[in-house]
């Protein structure tokens, strides 16, 4: 029984990580509510959103339902779908009361992303 929902409205790339083998990062999200089944976005295997500095990705109606929290992790995938080869960019956890707004996530490989979200109910 989920009680809360947030919508991820956009992900802005302020800077890409240095670890990619292609221009930009091949970004995908893994969203896990309350430690349950993770959801991959984009859903299709091997799929990702190529992001370079200044790019804004607006996932189509990405609403995350949760009871206690939902953890959103940004990954940069290289080569193929094998997650063992993916690079961890950063993650952010939403709890009830997170409100609406944006969070900036950075790492020492140069990745700098802003995740914007809207609390629905």
């Amino acid at each position, binding site marked *: 029984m989920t009680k809360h929902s947030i919508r991820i409205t956009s992900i802005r790339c302020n800077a890409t990580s240095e670890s990619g083998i292609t221009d930009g990062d091949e970004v995908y999200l893994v969203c896990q509510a*309350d430690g349950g*089944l993770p959801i991959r976005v984009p859903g299709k*295997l091997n799929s990702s959103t190529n992001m370079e500095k200044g790019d804004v990705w607006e996932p189509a109606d990405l609403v995350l339902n949760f009871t*206690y929290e939902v953890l959103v992790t940004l990954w940069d995938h290289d080569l193929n779908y094998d997650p063992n*080869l*993916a690079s*961890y960019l950063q993650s952010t956890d939403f709890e009830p009361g997170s409100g609406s707004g944006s969070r900036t996530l950075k790492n020492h490989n140069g990745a700098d992303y802003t995740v914007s979200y809207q609390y629905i109910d």
Partner: protein
Amino acid sequence: MKEELKIQLANYAALYQSMNLPETHAAQSPRGMTAEEQQVFAAALKAWTTYSQSPEGKKDLAAVEHMDLQEVRAYVATLPDKPVFVELIKWIRSLDLPESSFTIGLCFEAELIIGFSGTIGVAVGIGNSSGAQSAEFLAASLELGLEVGAMAGVQFGLWNSAPVNLEGNRVGIELDLDLGVGISAGVYCRKDDDDLTFSGVAVMAGVGLEDGIGIVDCYIFILGDQGADPYLKPVVQPRKSNLLIIESLRCVHPSNDGAGNENEVKFIFQADGDTLYPYPTYDYFSMKEGEVWQCGRSVWFNEKVAVTIYDEDTGSGDDVVGTFSISKGQLSPGKSVTFHSTKDYSSRTDAVEYTINVKWVAQDVAPGGA
């Protein structure tokens, strides 16, 4: 069925589910099963009966109930070397079959996700691929109507792909064949838009299987050679009575690993002595002195959680830089508590210190699926 295997199967089911593959509601099988294929499956089922009722087979199959994914994978890889299957495969290779792989798989239900099942098996080359390298695979399927249980049976398949090329999604269409009690058969097709292309045929036998599976959507993963590591690391957590969040991890002082002024940090958490979960699930997060990682990792637990922080070192192995023991009695609902390492990992020349902040967000939660 081992808890670890349930979680590992749930990870594959989750990956399968996240693919958003269009569900198949109705489909016409492009062909049936040939008389020769039926002969192969009849012989395979006979061989399975011989093996599973032998002292060796009984012992092996009893042991499977206590295996995790890697152990099951290692076990199925040995099946083609069992004398009864050596004979069977030799005979199949002598036939003029159009297929390129013969598979033997054990079927399990992904208990954490009702309706999903997993088949862990081995594919050997036949026909034009007789000399090809064998491959272990895991097929995740959505089969509504399956009841929760342990190992659900055995599956044999004949496929038109070489073993290493089996990966991909399939649609299984049940064939109405009178093969005996508890035995079902299906034709499997690759789906390209609305077109179905023949991919293989399979039979399943075992206790607990329902007749009339109709249509099954599935995805076959080839299990790569990942050494001791599971191909997919555990993510899904069984629900327990309490939930905490490891809100943040502070690098008070990194260890001096000789590779710059930062540590490549990751941690393992373990609730109540059960499954070990890495975080980040893959890779690491680099941290310098004084930095805080807002990791936000939720953990279901009943009584206690153990956390071990590592500095990942390629080549020389990972170094432990902090160990934490969190018990329910140390927490207050809704409040953040700072934990210090239970052991000091500093040396005379190297001060090392990490702390974690933990918040207890749910107490006495009713049991239920994750």
